């Protein structure tokens, strides 16, 4: 905190110093976190991504599952922003035809027609946050069907709109990280706590288990487990099965952090004082020890999420994770597996971008929290 302090003059405590002296632990953490610019940027990006997850339906303009062979593999379409010198965005509808020489499907914009693009217009009906009936979307077109005229990021092989699918995929992939990390957190805190607080035999056993788990190459193992999920399970069942499978990765690191904090705190004077005053074990753990390392756990948790997002993406990419009709970043990237197809339609690689951005953002934010976690240090 040295950089926050104003030098003391003649024993008089300045206002700034007093502010620091009476600040709560969380205030101190926040002040320090705020200074970490990359971490703040990461936090902003994550907030945005979770907003997208909340409003995925609002942000998409067509039903992500609506397919049409006639619109297969259309390239991203440019939006014309100005019409007659004024800001009136419009697009040209796209016409598909067979190339007479190569027999490939080619698309050309019909420049004689202008379809106006509107903000907050009407589109397909959905339920906002899963509850409120709604048909407003961020983008809509006037006097035309959006699925026939709007292709911001192009379409996939089955003619489904990539932008709308990306919105739904963001929701799945971002929440799967959160759900899995919650499960790992539970396992990690429980086992790490036992290990660190009691020590002795339980500690040895848990530490050996962690060591064994860490020395196993995880992906082949998870592939095996994921492949064993029954084929008739529905999206929700597979979703939770996958979260359980990938949460088995993350808990070891969390347990390690919790154990380390427990061991170092056990020797602190304030714990000794609490023991001498006759506090119960439960009170010592939850009233005295846990508050002083919650921030460390939050940091470790944040840093565990990216690995989970990558695991889900990898498993789904291989066809062993979430299965269509579920949509996630990994499911979307499955279309990019074929290199020849990718060269012809490079926009299929777009879903790789949010994965990289999300992983980076979580890493930056986690680093920032870790640096700020111990404000008295």
């Amino acid at each position, binding site marked *: 905190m040295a950089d926050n302090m104003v030098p003391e003059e003649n024993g008089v405590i300045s206002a700034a110093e007093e502010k620091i002296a009476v600040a709560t632990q969380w205030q101190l953490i926040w002040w320090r976190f705020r200074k970490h610019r990359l971490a703040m940027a990461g936090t902003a990006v994550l907030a945005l991504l979770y907003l997208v997850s909340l409003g995925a339906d609002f942000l998409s303009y067509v039903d992500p599952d609506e397919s049409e062979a006639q619109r297969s593999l259309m390239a991203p379409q440019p939006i014309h922003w100005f019409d007659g010198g004024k800001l009136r965005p419009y697009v040209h509808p796209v016409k598909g035809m067979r190339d007479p020489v190569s027999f490939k499907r080619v698309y050309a914009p019909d420049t004689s027609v202008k379809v106006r693009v509107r903000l907050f217009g009407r589109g397909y009906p959905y339920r906002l946050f899963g509850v409120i009936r709604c048909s407003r979307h961020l983008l809509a077109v006037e006097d035309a069907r959006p699925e026939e005229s709007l292709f911001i990021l192009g379409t996939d092989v089955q003619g489904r709109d990539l932008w709308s699918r990306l919105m739904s995929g963001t929701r799945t992939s971002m929440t799967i990280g959160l759900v899995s990390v919650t499960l790992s957190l539970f396992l990690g805190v429980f086992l790490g706590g036992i290990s660190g607080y009691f020590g002795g035999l339980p500690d040895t056993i848990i*530490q*050996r288990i962690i*060591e*064994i788990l*860490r*020395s*196993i*190459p*995880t*992906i*082949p*193992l998870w*592939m*095996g*487990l994921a*492949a*064993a999920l*029954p084929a008739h399970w529905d999206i929700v069942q597979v979703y939770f099965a996958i979260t359980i499978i990938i949460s088995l990765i993350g808990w070891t*690191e969390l347990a*390690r952090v919790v154990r*380390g904090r427990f061991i170092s705190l056990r020797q602190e004077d304030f714990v000794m004082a609490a023991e001498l005053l006759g506090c119960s074990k439960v009170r010592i753990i939850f009233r005295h020890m846990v508050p002083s390392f919650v921030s460390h756990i939050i940091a470790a948790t944040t*840093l565990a999420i*990216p*690995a989970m997002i*990558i695991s889900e*993406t*990898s498993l789904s*990419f*291989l*066809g*062993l994770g979430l299965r269509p009709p579920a949509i996630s970043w990994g499911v979307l*990237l499955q279309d*990019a*597996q074929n*290199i*020849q197809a*990718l*060269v012809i339609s*490079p926009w299929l*690689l777009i879903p*790789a971008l949010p*994965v*990289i951005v999300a*992983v*980076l953002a979580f*890493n*930056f934010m986690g680093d920032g929290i870790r640096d700020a976690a111990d404000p008295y240090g």
Partner: protein
Amino acid sequence: MPQAAGAPEGGCPPPAASPARSGRERDQKGMASYIARRFLLAILTVLAISILSFTIIHLPPGDYVTSFIAQMSASGSSVSEAEAQAMRTQLGLDRPIYIQYLKWMGLILQGNFGMAMEWGRPVLDVIGDRLTLTIVISLAAIVFTWALALPIGIYSAVRRYSFLDYAFTFIGFIGLAIPGFMLALIIMYVGFAYFGANVGGLFSPDFAEAPWTWARFWDLVKHLPIPAVVLGISGTAQMIRIMRSNLLDELRKPYVITARARGLDETRVILKYPVRVALNPFVSTIGYLLPYVVSGSIIVSLVLSLPTVGPLLLKALIAQDMFLAGTIVLMLGVMTVIGTFISDLLLMWVDPRIRLGRR
């Protein structure tokens, strides 16, 4: 993410210092005890992996006979209930699960890994060279990781907050954020779209099926860099960060100031003492790096179409060819354990504190 702290613990037996014994004797005792503990842990890990692999074999509904019947009826012939029962008895599938596990282990110890159903050939035949190639690729990736991470980590620590330090940190973050298979996709795409070349594979078409010769080996070496970089890059990013922070901790210590005050030249001050100490957690992370790289190689092999066990495993899992899949998981696991054990021995060689049995 492998962390430096806490990694080498568990391997240090209590000090067996007795003034009567000579130093050498104490050395050997500490070493033997360390090796014994590590070896025990390796055996335990192998057991755990074998149980997990066996679970994978048994997870899908039905057993070998059900899939055999399905295969038979697909080709037109039928199997009666009695025949199926006889087959189950013969294969021991009606016995309790732990007996089946012990039998499976018994067969494996005799070198019999069962049949790959889809291929109609013994599992070992199908795996063939692929396991060796997986090892070769993983080792290449680790060599790449070390060759890059060590000098960059030292540089970043010594010239902290310099332009290059920031540049490496930035590249490292990007390397961490891009999963290997995605990097492989991007490289394949760039190779195809801009250079018209297929950068995948481990051999040129001429050598793909050829027997081993020096020419084929050289062909393999020429194809190694891309998979090694793709697999190694995120590990490199982690290793740089570990090396950097370890060395920064060491550089602050008084003995470095002492060395400087004594007038040693800077290269010697840094390389001879702090780097050697900082190397310890760095070496011990190889135990975590190896499973990580092997894991990654499975997916990356699919994208880059490398002839490793990766594509085979995926095919086996999709076809529910569980003996093949289970064997591959088991072999990868055992391979990793052996690698980790070797790295433990290496750690002992690098760090005299472990060798001497002192913390």
